[in-house]
């Protein structure tokens, strides 16, 4: 179990805050100190949204650029916008049906930053859960090894968070992202 600094980025309405809650809950369940920071207010009106999640580590709410272990991007553009947060050797998991951005490839390689993409919108649509793109990306991120958390641990967090009626759909989305 390691300390991790995670950045979640997306567009208002995509569920960045729920992903933040799931990660925080997962950290809590395994006894790690948790400090996460959300952006409210304009979130639902389609603006850029970003949150920081720290599992283990200090009580500082903000993450300095170049120090995040992983970036989870529910939207490719927002992922690119927040790329500088990722540290050398860090990982990016982004929702995209057409790769990431070739103009960044050389720089990312030099920094040993791995980028994994998943067509989360496609997977969500196929599973009949258009609103669950966020959890598809989260499941994918766990399965890639980008998070120091397993799909099972995230599943337990989803169950603990509820509400009960949403748990089955949320778990299904998580598993779909993890390729199960």
């Amino acid at each position, binding site marked *: 179990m390691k300390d991790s600094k995670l950045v979640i980025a997306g567009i208002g309405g995509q569920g960045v805050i729920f992903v933040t809650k799931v990660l925080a809950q997962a950290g809590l369940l395994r006894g790690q100190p948790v400090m996460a920071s959300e952006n409210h207010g304009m979130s639902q009106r389609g603006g850029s949204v970003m949150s920081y999640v720290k599992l283990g580590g200090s009580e500082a709410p*903000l993450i300095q650029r170049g120090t995040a272990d992983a970036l989870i991007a529910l939207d490719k553009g927002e992922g690119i916008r927040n790329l500088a947060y990722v540290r050398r050797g860090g990982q990016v998991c982004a929702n995209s049906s057409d790769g990431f951005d070739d103009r960044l490839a050389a720089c990312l390689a030099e920094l040993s930053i791995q980028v994994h993409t998943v067509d989360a919108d496609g997977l969500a649509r196929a599973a009949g859960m258009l609103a669950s793109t966020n959890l598809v990306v989260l499941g994918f991120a766990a399965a890639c090894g980008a998070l120091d958390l397993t799909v099972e641990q995230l599943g337990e967090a989803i169950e603990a968070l509820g509400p009960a009626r949403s748990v089955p759909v949320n778990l299904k989305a998580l598993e779909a992202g993890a390729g199960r």
Partner: protein
Amino acid sequence: MSVQLLLGNDAIALGLTQAGCQVVTAYPGTPSSEILAGVIRYKKKLGLDLYAEWSASEKVAFEVALAASLSGLRAATAMKQVGLNVAADPMFSAAYMGVVGGFVIVPCDDPGPMSSQTEQDSRLLALTAKVPVFDPATPAEALGMAGAALELSERHRLPVMLRPTTRVCHAVQSVAVDNQKVVRRPAAGFKKDPQRWAATPVFRLKLHHELNAKLAAIEAEFNESPLNFSVDCEGGRHYPLGVIAGGVAYQTVRQALTDLGVSVPLLKIGTPFPLPRRRVAEFIAQCGRVLVVEEPDACIELQISDRTRVSGRLDGMVPSAGELTPEILSACLSRCLSACGLSVPPSEDLPLDGLVQSLKIAPRRPRLCPGCSHRSAMYTMKHLFGPNAIYPGDIGCYSLGTNLRAIDTFVDMGAAITLATGFYQAARFTGDHRPIVALIGDSTFLHSGITPLLNAVHTGARFVLLILDNHTTAMTGAQPTPANDFNAEGDLAARIPILDIVRACGVRFTRMADPYEHESFESLLKEAHAFSQAPEGGLAVIIADRPCILYDRSPVEANPIPVAVTAECDGCRYCLEAFECPALVLRPDRSRVDIDARICIDCGQCIDACYKGFIVPKDAALALSGARP
């Protein structure tokens, strides 16, 4: 005792309720809105006997809670920082008067600002009003400080401020929660004391001397308080550089020091006013130079009388605007370390930063939701009056009408009506007789639009006032207003129709209309404008009446109108610029516009957004020969 994930605002709510607050009032405003909601949740969860109220304004909220305190009950009031400006009038007076039951004011500051008109510092208002301040750096601290603030307030009999910022309010932290028994203060009701509660100026002077004495006693306590403590600082040792920090900035600077791999003594100030000056002076005496880090303004720094060895906002070492990010503080620390002749670890290059900037990714601004009634009203208004009109606006979701160039000003709550009045009066000298259409929301109107309306009618100002009534306080999370028939806890409440209030203000042209009905809405706007220009006419009010679709989609669901963009769409983007529904999306190759089915709610409002007729009801599109939508 259990470890729980607590949102900062929930930690504050829990702290206030556990410490026995029985009256908690608030007006919604980011980043404070979850505090009252949290109090209501804990009331239900812990089975508490308390009263929670969404008041009509922050001044009202403050005064209602104050009376509870004067009755001997513990009370609190919460708001955003600019809301404190509205509550400032009673705050200044209450500081002199004193309180009975503990009374805590919780204004939530917004460094940045992320969603406010200013990034002002509530601690400075407290300093001017002579109200002690607790400044939490984390949700866990906020939980403890809520109780400490109430206790201090009650013991010294004066209002006390608990001042969190966004990164406390909207942070989620794992916090050890003591499931303690709720403290209750025996309260016998209001005891008359006219020299205090109805003090005239001669008694106010006496009260002022009393207040000053209270502050001196509190400062002495703060000098000994464990809320002000030093880190990495050995007594008797001398250091080239020290840092004094408070609030979130303390956490940020501490992390920055760790990341730099540097150890520097830190003095954390949890009680920035009255500043524990002795404690601070002792720390400064151990340091060659001191850097003061706090936000959003200088409050600790201003109270240090000898600043010859002190750096901060006043000498430009710390920026005087904008949030203090880790990058900014790291750079400040490096400069200070250098200036003190200490070695600075080389700063790491961030090649990704420059590269991403060069890609110039378009900023994604917030927009009104698909189906928003405000969009329909403003689109029709612009269609009629065009760019040659003045549109004084106000604060709420409809502020996003700036995207449609349908809002020309916002200043503070209620200013739409007063600015419209002022523009009207100014026109007699400037000769600028463009139509004036003021826009204000229902909650904002009830908060601070009534007095301006009285003033406008009385002084004969002529303009059109569009009250955008979506039946709620939408931007902050659908809190009820006095025009709703339910209250903060979801119980029945007396409903006061805005139409009645407008008529009672003496307005002689008042109509209600559905902004979804574009043609009739536009005719009505025309009629209203004509009335405002007619010799026997005057101020005209139209209430655009339709519920917020985020919270009540039933009218649209009862009458869905799926739409399609025809094959003839030429990608001219007029609909995107003038209507700007997020469900209208330009294809990546910019050839045409499509409907994003994931977010379209089938309101059909965009049909009028294409003057070429390329947005049509879906049935019509399918009926067009050979055309595929």
